[in-house]
């Protein structure tokens, strides 16, 4: 050190030490602030990501594109086998399509007979994946749609086929999707056809764990896993994947979404499920002062009575 420095060391060194100390204190304060008031700092983080990452697009897009091209080139080698496999699958799909059409018609008929009302129709916003989480221990992606597109925290995200994750953190023009594989991800699911309810818990591996299954013997590898509407987290019935057993005989889910390459994601606009919280009130005749505030068209007979009382 003595070799590097010049003669003015005696003055600058204590000053430098003070500045380093101040820097350390600021960082410590920042960490404490993050720990104590996490939501505020996370909002700040979302705002910064929102500002920074879209501007990096010019740098990131070419590399991503090149990588995709290289991947595509590599897959040329397996083109013939892929083609054969696709033909076989197409054959099977035709059979399934026929079955699905018949079932759809049957379903429509039955629903018409039942006067059944399904969930309010789900609409969706599609977005492009812009960036990764950047850390090997966090599994999330950044989408290029945000609050200005009406995205809200907690909405489900699919890749068209299977569930991918949910929105966690919304900026003005970007939003972060917490993937099902993240350690913080917990999703209520139903295992079909046994109807067992369980929690899908991410653990940083490609296949998340199934936890809290009531009767394990009813669950078999290959069973379908769909989201359940429990807790109002997600719309019910979104395909998640298939049950699989890992080496330690634990239940995991092989995800239906193609996690290898997430490019276009679909965010489902879900309305909060209406909740019935009170046990129900006594049915009493409507009182005049409170009924006066109600819209006249809502309850025609009382509305007329109120008008009469006023006039």
């Amino acid at each position, binding site marked *: 050190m003595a070799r590097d420095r010049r003669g003015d060391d005696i003055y600058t060194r204590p000053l430098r030490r003070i500045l*380093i100390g101040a820097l350390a204190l600021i960082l410590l304060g920042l*960490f404490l602030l993050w720990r104590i008031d996490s939501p505020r700092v996370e909002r700040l983080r979302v705002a910064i990501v929102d500002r920074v990452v879209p501007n990096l697009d010019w740098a990131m897009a070419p590399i991503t594109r090149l990588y995709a091209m290289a991947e595509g080139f590599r897959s040329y080698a397996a083109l013939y086998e892929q083609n054969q496999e696709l033909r076989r699958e197409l054959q099977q799909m035709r059979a399934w399509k026929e079955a699905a059409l018949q079932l759809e018609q049957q379903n429509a008929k039955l629903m018409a007979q039942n006067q059944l009302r399904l969930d309010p129709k789900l609409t969706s916003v599609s977005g492009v*994946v812009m960036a990764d*989480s*950047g850390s090997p221990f966090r599994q999330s992606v950044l989408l290029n749609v945000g609050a200005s597109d009406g995205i809200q925290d907690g909405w489900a995200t699919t890749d068209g086929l299977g569930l991918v994750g949910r929105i966690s953190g919304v900026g003005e023009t970007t939003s972060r999707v917490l993937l099902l594989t993240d350690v913080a991800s917990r999703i209520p699911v139903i295992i079909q056809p046994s109807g067992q309810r369980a929690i899908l818990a991410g653990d940083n591996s490609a296949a998340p764990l199934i936890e809290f299954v009531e009767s394990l013997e009813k669950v078999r590898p290959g069973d379908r896993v769909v989201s359940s509407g429990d807790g109002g987290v997600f719309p019910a019935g979104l395909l998640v994947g298939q049950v699989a057993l890992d080496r330690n005989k634990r239940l995991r889910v092989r995800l239906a979404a193609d996690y290898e390459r997430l490019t276009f994601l679909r965010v489902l606009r879900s309305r909060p499920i209406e909740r019935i919280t009170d046990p129900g009130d006594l049915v009493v005749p409507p009182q005049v002062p409170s009924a006066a505030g109600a819209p006249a068209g809502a309850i025609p007979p009382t509305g007329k009575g109120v008008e009469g009382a006023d006039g």
Partner: protein
Amino acid sequence: MVDPRLASRLAHRAAYLVLAAVLIVLRLLPLSTQPSAWPLPDLLLCLTLAWLLRRPDHVPALSIVAVLLIEDLLTLRPVGLWPLIILSVTEILRSRSSGLRDLPFVVEWMVVAGAVFLAGLIDWVVLALALAPQVGLGPTMVQAALTVMAYPAVVAALAVLLGIRRIGDTDAPTRRRLT
């Protein structure tokens, strides 16, 4: 006229910032969203330590902190803790860098390994004490080990690409390479 030594120093400081930005952007690229079985080595930490032990004047504490803080914000880490730990580590190493320069590379490597593991351990312990959500100690240590293994490669890359070598005296080769 601008002092050439000062100009070279400023250029190298800028080079550190640019390289760090490139590393961060590379990690943000959505190449594969599948969780990987092995965590990638923390190349940014390698770069910082290697550069620091060769030319401490090129990586002032302020740029280290700025780079790590931005990395914190962009990669969803707890804000402030990792820069604080690395700031302390680099300050300790900075004060010993001139002594380390005269020792064989293996000794430097061991010192860096100790620093990386210690930093990972402190980070884990503090987060555990603060009851903050985090990954287990295992993956953190695996990443530290991979980071230590990547260190010689980063050192070699620094020497080849930017001519930043381990030398007793300061400026001669760097200046020759720059001009």
